[in-house]
Structures are given as C-alpha cells and as structure tokens.
C-alpha cells in the first residue's frame, strides 16, 4: 500500500491500533478540506500494531485530544518534506469541549452553552471526571 509522503503537515504516529478512527473523529478531521490519510493496523516494533494519521496541511491540531486518546502517540511536524520536530504527548490535566458528560443530572445536560470540562483524576487508570458533577468520563 502506498501513501504519498507529505511536504507540509503533521504525522500522528504510534497510535494504539484501533484508536486511530476515534482520534480522527475527535480531532474533527472529517470536516477538513485537506488530504488526510488514515492508516490502520500497521506493524510496529514498539507496539506490535499501530495506527497512523497523516495530514497534508499545516493546520493546528489539539495535543490535548491526542494525549487523551493515546498519550503514547507521537506527533511529527513536517516542513518542506523534512521532519523538523517530534513531539512527545502527555495526558492533559484538563480536557475542554472534547467529550460530553453523560450524566443526565449534570448541569451541562440542560445548559448546553456551558463548556464540557473534565479533569484527570487518576493517571494510571486514564480516568477523567466532569468538573461539575464528578461523573467519570465514558470509556473511549
């Protein structure tokens, strides 16, 4: 399978196999009018299998979203066909307007204009809770 290399853009590499599409949706890549390649189940020396997303455009992406979906992923910034920066990703302490609270008793269920904010409450378990009602975020 051939996927053209990109000149100016971003490669999100080492995504856990199966998480690529989730990340694709949460980053809103489906709404972009730029070339995006979604490669799944590639052999990986580090992870066994991995997913890769290549975005052939110089656009901002949310590292918080990437860190939430898979903090072990890496982000490669490409300029003029050359790798100029490799970013290590970490789980964000706060996550704003990425996921919604599922608790029907939460104030965010009736006041739709409120930001949906979650805070990291357990790093080992990758657990986030709504700052308003403390409900645990649904699993990805």
């Amino acid at each position, binding site marked *: 399978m051939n996927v053209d290399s990109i000149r100016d853009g971003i490669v999100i590499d080492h995504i856990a196999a199966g998480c690529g599409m989730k990340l694709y949706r949460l980053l809103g890549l489906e709404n972009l009018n730029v070339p995006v390649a979604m490669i799944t189940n590639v052999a990986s020396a580090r992870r066994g299998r991995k997913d890769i997303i290549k975005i052939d455009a110089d656009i901002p992406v949310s590292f918080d979203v990437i860190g939430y979906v898979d903090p072990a992923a890496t982000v490669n910034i490409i300029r003029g066909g050359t790798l100029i920066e490799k970013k290590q990703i970490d789980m964000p302490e706060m996550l704003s307007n990425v996921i919604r609270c599922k608790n029907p*008793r*939460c*104030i965010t269920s009736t006041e739709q*204009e409120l930001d949906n904010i979650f805070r990291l409450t357990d790093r080992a378990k990758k657990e986030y809770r709504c*700052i*308003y009602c*403390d409900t645990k975020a649904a699993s990805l």
Partner: protein
Amino acid sequence: MRSVIDVPDLSLEELDQLMDTAEDIISHPDSYQDACRRKKLATLFFEPSTRTRLSFEAAMYELGGNVLSVTGANTSSAAKGESVADTAKTVSCYADIIAMRHPKEGAALVAANNATVPVINAGDGGHCHPTQTLADLLTIRREKGHFSGLTVGLCGDLKFGRTVHSLIHALCRYDNMHFVLISPEELKVPSYVKNDALKNKGIPYEQTTSLEEAIGSLDILYMTRVQRERFFNEEDYLRLRDSYILTPEKLRLARPDLCVMHPLPRVNEISVAVDKDPRACYFKQVLNGKYMRMALILMLLREAGTL
C-alpha cells in the same frame, strides 16, 4: 472570589476555625448580633427545601443581616429559561453572598464561576451538600469531643445519599477512623467513593446489610432516608424505602454513649420513640447546622472584604 462548593474546598484548619467560631457564637450570641448589619444574603432555592433554607435565613438574621429569597424554579427567571450563570451575575448585583440549592449537579460551581460575590452550595442535586457536613462535623465534635479513633456507622441509602459521601470524605481526613457501611445491596456506597476516600488511603471499613449486628460497635450511627427524588423508578423506591428502621429495641444493642445522627427530614427510618433517648442527636444537629452556616457566612464575607 472564594466560594464553598464542596467540603474539600475547606482545609482541616479552616474546618477547625469554623467550628471554633460556631462554638463562640453558641457561647456569646450577643457578640454576633450585628456582625452582618446591612449585609444581604440571597437564598436561591430551585429545589424543595425547608430546613436548609430556613437555617441559612435564620443564620443571617442572627448575624444582624437581611435576606432576599427565591423559592422554586417556577417563581423565578429560571422558569423563563435564564441560565444559572446569568442568575448568579444578576443576583450578585443585589446581594453580598448567595446560598443556592439547585436540582442539577454542578449548578453551584457554575454560579460560583460567574458570581461576583461568594456562593455557598446549599445542595446541587445528589452531588454535594457541604453545609450539612459542617453541621455533622460540629455535632460529632460537640458530642464526642474529638475526631480521632471513632467507629462511624452509616446506614440506609449510601448510594444516592450525598450527605453520606461528603461525610465520609470529610471524616477520612482525620486519624484512625473506622467506617461501617450498612445498606441493602442496591444502595451500597458507590465504588468510586470507596476507592477515593477509603481504599486508596488504607482506611479500614466494613460493609454489612445488618444494622443489628453492627450497632454494638459504633460510636456514631448516621441514619439516612431513602429519597424518592433520587430514583427514576417508583417501584425501586417503594421496595427499598423501609430497609432500615431504628427502634428503641435496636438501640438496646448499642453503646450507652452512641451518638445517633440523621440529616433530616426523616420519613420512618427512625422511630419517633427514639427521640426521647439521650443518644438521639439529630435535632441538636439541626441547631448546629445554623451555627456552622453563621460561621461560614462570616468567614466568606470577611475573606471577600465585605465585612
């Protein structure tokens, strides 16, 4: 602007200070009768409540202040669809401090994030009710004299009972506490509360379905009501409503210095005959709640520079 949404918003030192102030108010009420003169408390109660609202209002009146009151979402701008944020901003223009009860969890935090005066959470759905916990803490301190090495039994609805969760979180900050969780299977303490407050801190606890077996080992027995409004299903409510009823017969199995507490209102989970027992402390708890609310209003208004 400092607000109090949940008990962990207050350090142990601040809790001690609040209890010291409450004790001082009890001993010298006249010294506080003008402490909040010309200050206004707005009580915004968008969910039915009698005692908490009256307690806040009595607290402000006893501090010499005034009260602006909204009761029920139907009689306020909330009925017209006003957001909590806009309500908080608007009321901040009229009052020096806000006490708010709202059926939605997190509503008090939204109010606090938007108000320009301190906000006290007077209950946000099934989430937090910090001033009830303040009342509970003062009652335990006044009845037992300390918080160390107590065996605390919590009985009834431990799943939806916000007062229970708050009290566990508050008491587990003290040394050598031991908890006995008494409930039917369906109303056990949620695992995240157990994990956060007890398991992860190595605090000993037991779970049982038998009040009779547990009562003899307790220093404190905290009874709770099974609340209809926390159930989506009426059948489940009716089935679990009468799970535990404290009677004089069961109290005979308890220690002579047991302290029986209840956040009130009760339905039938404590027999009226128990009221005569000197171990019944739930009406003292109501009074202690007023004193702790007075202490909290004073603390927040002083911190805000209003006093």
